[in-house]
């Protein structure tokens, strides 16, 4: 079989149906061998280790563990921050309430003093009116 005939068969007939002579020829002719490999490239691809082989499982699992630890630390920090902010807000509230309650205590004394002066005034007035009445 000539190279031309072999290459014609390779191009026209599916790989599974190649005659035995073609296979024989391919064993002894590098040109036709290359031709067959290149012509049948999608099928050849599956037989090739086209990509570097990797196993990143240990590195990835370590990274995931670190990520989890980082997340845990973040949770702890956010919890601690919440507690601190909570205390601060609590302190502010307490201060505010204390401040308000001290104001609140002052108000009745003013009111009392007003009431007291009113009472004196009215009493005086009453006295005066009574006096006038008597007169």
């Amino acid at each position: 079989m000539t190279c031309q005939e072999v290459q014609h068969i390779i191009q026209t007939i599916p790989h599974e149906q190649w005659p035995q002579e073609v296979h024989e020829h391919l064993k002894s002719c590098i040109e036709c061998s290359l031709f067959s490999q290149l012509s049948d490239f999608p099928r050849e691809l599956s037989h090739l280790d086209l990509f570097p082989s990797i196993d990143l499982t240990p590195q990835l699992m370590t990274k995931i563990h670190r990520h989890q630890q980082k997340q845990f630390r973040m949770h702890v920090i956010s919890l601690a921050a919440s507690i601190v902010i909570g205390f601060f807000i609590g302190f502010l509230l307490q201060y505010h309430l204390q401040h308000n309650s001290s104001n609140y205590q002052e108000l009745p004394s003013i009111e009392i003093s007003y009431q007291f002066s009113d009472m004196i005034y009215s009493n005086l007035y009453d006295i005066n009116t009574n006096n006038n009445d008597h007169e």
Partner: protein
Amino acid sequence: MPFKTKHKEIIIEALIKSHQQKVFNLAYSIVRHEEEARDIVQDVFLKAFEHLDEFRGDAEITTWLYRITYNHSINMLKKITKADFARLMSEPDEQSDEEPTPWIIPIAKRNEEADFKVTQAELKSILWEALDKLPITQRTAFLLHHYDGFSYQEIAQIMNKSMPSVESLIFRARQELKRLLQNFYEQYKENSKIMSNHLSKN
């Protein structure tokens, strides 16, 4: 219902073991750099771990894994100069007339060893040389289909394209590869003749 931490670890480990090579292949076929591709694999699985609770089925998460790998790899490429990125992503308007780089296989040595089959390493180099001449979208779709065995529908989901567009990408990639490898073969034949003549003269 969210997974327990221990369950999440078991699931992610199983996912890594079963999908890391294909995720790497996809990243590598886009960025064409081993270290970058490894980094992408790590980023993708870390993201998958963070979002594990959002998935309800294996099919959903695997498609998501490849889609995020594709997008992440494209984004990595964008870090290269914009001009280079545009050139890599663009589909060629006309067939390039550029001849493939001559690949001289040492015939004399081969004859001595009585090895008439192109070695895996040689064939791999030839194919990568041709694959590198394809636009990224064509190369990715072609490799996803012919190497990793994804269906057109899966590739459409991964690359966020329509099915006809994926079919067209793979068809054009096959045609272009055929042309490039044919050119390579012609080049090789020429070189072989020159070398044979040279050897016979000597």
